[in-house]
C-alpha cells in the first residue's frame, strides 16, 4: 500500500517551498512587473533575509556572531528590514543612472553576498551554513503530516495577506505612479512626480519582501547554506515571474507553482533516467531547459500566461488590451 501520509507530507512541504519562492516572486513583481526595475540579485536579497533571521533567532554558537534566540516574528521583521535597507542602498547609488546599471549593481551585490556567506565564518558559518534555526510549530515536529500542514497554513496565510496588500497598492494612487514611471518617466516627472523616489520605494519594498521569503525559507527548513542562494535561484524566480505573467500578482504565484512543478518533475525524471555518474550533467540539462523556457517566453509570449491587467480602476476607461 502506498504511503499516503508520507506523500501528503511531501506535498505539503513541496507546496510550502513553492509558496516561499512565490513570495520572492511577488517582491520581484513589485520591482520589475510594476516599476520596471531590473534586479538580478534576487538570491542575494533572499540570502540577506535568511541569514539575518537565522542569526537573530538561533541559539548562540561559539565563534559565530549573533545567536540571540529572539522570537521568529522578530527574526522575520529583521530579515525584511535588512534586505530592504540593502536594497535601498543599492537603489540610492544606481537608480539615478541608466537602467542597466541597476541590473549590474544587483548582480554584483549578489556576488558579494555569496562571497561573504562563504568566507566570513564568524558571521555566516562559512560553507557549512547555519543549522538549528528555530522552526515554527516545532512542538509538532514528531508528527510530520500535522507539522507540514501547519507550516503550509502559515505560509499560505502570509501569501494571501501579501497578495491582498500588494493588490491594494497596485490600485492605489501610489501604484499608478509606479506604472506611470515605468511607462513614461518624462511624463510622470512633468506631472510633478519624483520618479527616483517612487522607484526607490518600490525597489526597497520589493527587496524587503524577498528578505521575508529568505527568512521563511531559513525557518521552515531549519538549515541554510550558501549553495541555496546562488545565481540559479535568482534565475528560477525570474522564470517564475515571466512565465506566470509579469505585472500580475496572481501570475507571479501561478508561475511559481508551475515552474516549481516543472523543476521538481524534471529533477525526478533526470534522477531516474540518468546513471549516477551523469547526474551532474543531467542537472545542468535542467538549467538549459529553464533558460530556454525563460528566453522563449520573453520572445514568444512576453505577457506570460496571465499578463498584466491594463485596467485597474473602475474609474478608468475600458480595457484597451
Amino acid at each position: 500500500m502506498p504511503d499516503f501520509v508520507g506523500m501528503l507530507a511531501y506535498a505539503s512541504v513541496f507546496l510550502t517551498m513553492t509558496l516561499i519562492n512565490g513570495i520572492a516572486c511577488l517582491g520581484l513583481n513589485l520591482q520589475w512587473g510594476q516599476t520596471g526595475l531590473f534586479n538580478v540579485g534576487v538570491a542575494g536579497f533572499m540570502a540577506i533575509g535568511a541569514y539575518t533571521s537565522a542569526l537573530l533567532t538561533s541559539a548562540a554558537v561559539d565563534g559565530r556572531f549573533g545567536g540571540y534566540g529572539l522570537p521568529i516574528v522578530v527574526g522575520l521583521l529583521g530579515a525584511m528590514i535588512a534586505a530592504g535597507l540593502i536594497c535601498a542602498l543599492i537603489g540610492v547609488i544606481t537608480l539615478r543612472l541608466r537602467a542597466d546599471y541597476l541590473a549590474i549593481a544587483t548582480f554584483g551585490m549578489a556576488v558579494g553576498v555569496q562571497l561573504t556567506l562563504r568566507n566570513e565564518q564568524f558571521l555566516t558559518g562559512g560553507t557549512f551554513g547555519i543549522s538549528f534555526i528555530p522552526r515554527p510549530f516545532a512542538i509538532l515536529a514528531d508528527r510530520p503530516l500535522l507539522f507540514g500542514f501547519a507550516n503550509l497554513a502559515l505560509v499560505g496565510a502570509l501569501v494571501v495577506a501579501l497578495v491582498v496588500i500588494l493588490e491594494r497598492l497596485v490600485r492605489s494612487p501610489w501604484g499608478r505612479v509606479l506604472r506611470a514611471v515605468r511607462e513614461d518617466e518624462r511624463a510622470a516627472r512633468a506631472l510633478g512626480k519624483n520618479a527616483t523616489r517612487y522607484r526607490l520605494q518600490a525597489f526597497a519594498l520589493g527587496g524587503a519582501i524577498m528578505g521575508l521569503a529568505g527568512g521563511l525559507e531559513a525557518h521552515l527548513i531549519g538549515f541554510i547554506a550558501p549553495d541555496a542562494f546562488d545565481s540559479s535561484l535568482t534565475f528560477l524566480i525570474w522564470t517564475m515571474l515571466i512565465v506566470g505573467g509579469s505585472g500580475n500578482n496572481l501570475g507571479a504565484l501561478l508561475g511559481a507553482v508551475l515552474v516549481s512543478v516543472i523543476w521538481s518533475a524534471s529533477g525526478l525524471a533526470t534522477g531516474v533516467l540518468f546513471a549516477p555518474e551523469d547526474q551532474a550533467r543531467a542537472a545542468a540539462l535542467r538549467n538549459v531547459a529553464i533558460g530556454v523556457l525563460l528566453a522563449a517566453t520573453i520572445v514568444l509570449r512576453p505577457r506570460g500566461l496571465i499578463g498584466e491587467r491594463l485596467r485597474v480602476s473602475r474609474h478608468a476607461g475600458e480595457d484597451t488590451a
Partner: protein
Amino acid sequence: MTLQFLADGLIAGSAIALGAAGVTLTYSIMRFANFAQGEFISWGCYLTLLIAGPIGAGFASSVDAIGPLSVGWNVVLAGVLAMALTGVLAIALDAILFRPLRERGATITAVMASFGASMALRALLEVLFSSHPFYLSRELQMAIPVAPGIRVTPDQMVLVGFAAGLIACLHLLLTRTGIGRALRAVGENPALARVAGIDVGRVILLTWFLVGALACASGVMMGMVMQIRPTMGSDILLPLFAAAILGGVGSVPGALVGGLIVGLAEATTVELLGSQWRAAVAFVVLISVLLIRPTGLLGRAP
C-alpha cells in the same frame, strides 16, 4: 612581498580588457548590458579546445611548441577559427533572441533575455563537457625575470602583446575606417544613421561578430593561464562590467584602461588580503565608479 602580483594583474587585466571592449561595444550599439558576454568567453575557449585537438591529430608537427611558447600552431589556428565561430554564435543568439526584442523596442527586456541565455549557454557547456577542468597548455614554462622581483613566462608576454594589439586594431577600426564611422553613427543615433544611408542591420551583425571574436580572444587568454571550466565566463562577468563602466561605456580605450585597473586591483587584493576576496574587488570598483564618476574615466555624459 615581491612585485610579481603586478605582472599577474597585467595579464588578468588584458583578458578583462578584451571582454570589456565587447561589453562596451554591445552597450553603445545595441544599448543593453549583455549578461551572456561571459558565456561568449567560455564558449570561445571551449571551441578553441575542441578545434585544436583534431588539428593536432591531423598534422602532428603542428603540436610542437612554437619557439619558447608552450603551445603549437594547432592552438593558434584553432584560436583564430574559434574567434570566427564565437562571432557567429553571437550573431545567431542575436537572430533568435535579441533581434525580435529590438524590433519590439524592448531594450531592458533584452538584458533579461541575455540573463536567461547566459544560464542556458553555461549549463549547456556543463552538459557537453562536464564541470571537469581542461587545459590548453599543461607545459611548465621557465619564467624570465624582467624586473626586480617580477618574472613572466614567454606565453604571458605574447598574450599581453596580443591583447594590446587587438584593442589597438579595434580602436583604429572604429576611428579610422568607414565601417567604424558607420558603427559609431549607429551608436549615436540609429534613426539618423539609417537616414544617412547606413545599413543598420549590417552594422549590428558586424558588432556582434566583433563582440564574439573579442570574447573568444579573452577566453583563449584565460584558458592559457588557468583552468578551463564552464563557469570561467560567468566568474569574470562582474570584472568585465566594472572595467567597462570604469573606463566609460562606449569607449574602447576606456575598456583597456578599465580592464588593466580592475586586473591590477584584483591582483593587489589577492596579494594583501587573500584570494577569497578577488571577486569582491570588481564590486567595490563598480560601486565606487557609480558613486563618484558614473560616466567613467574616458566616457562622455549620456
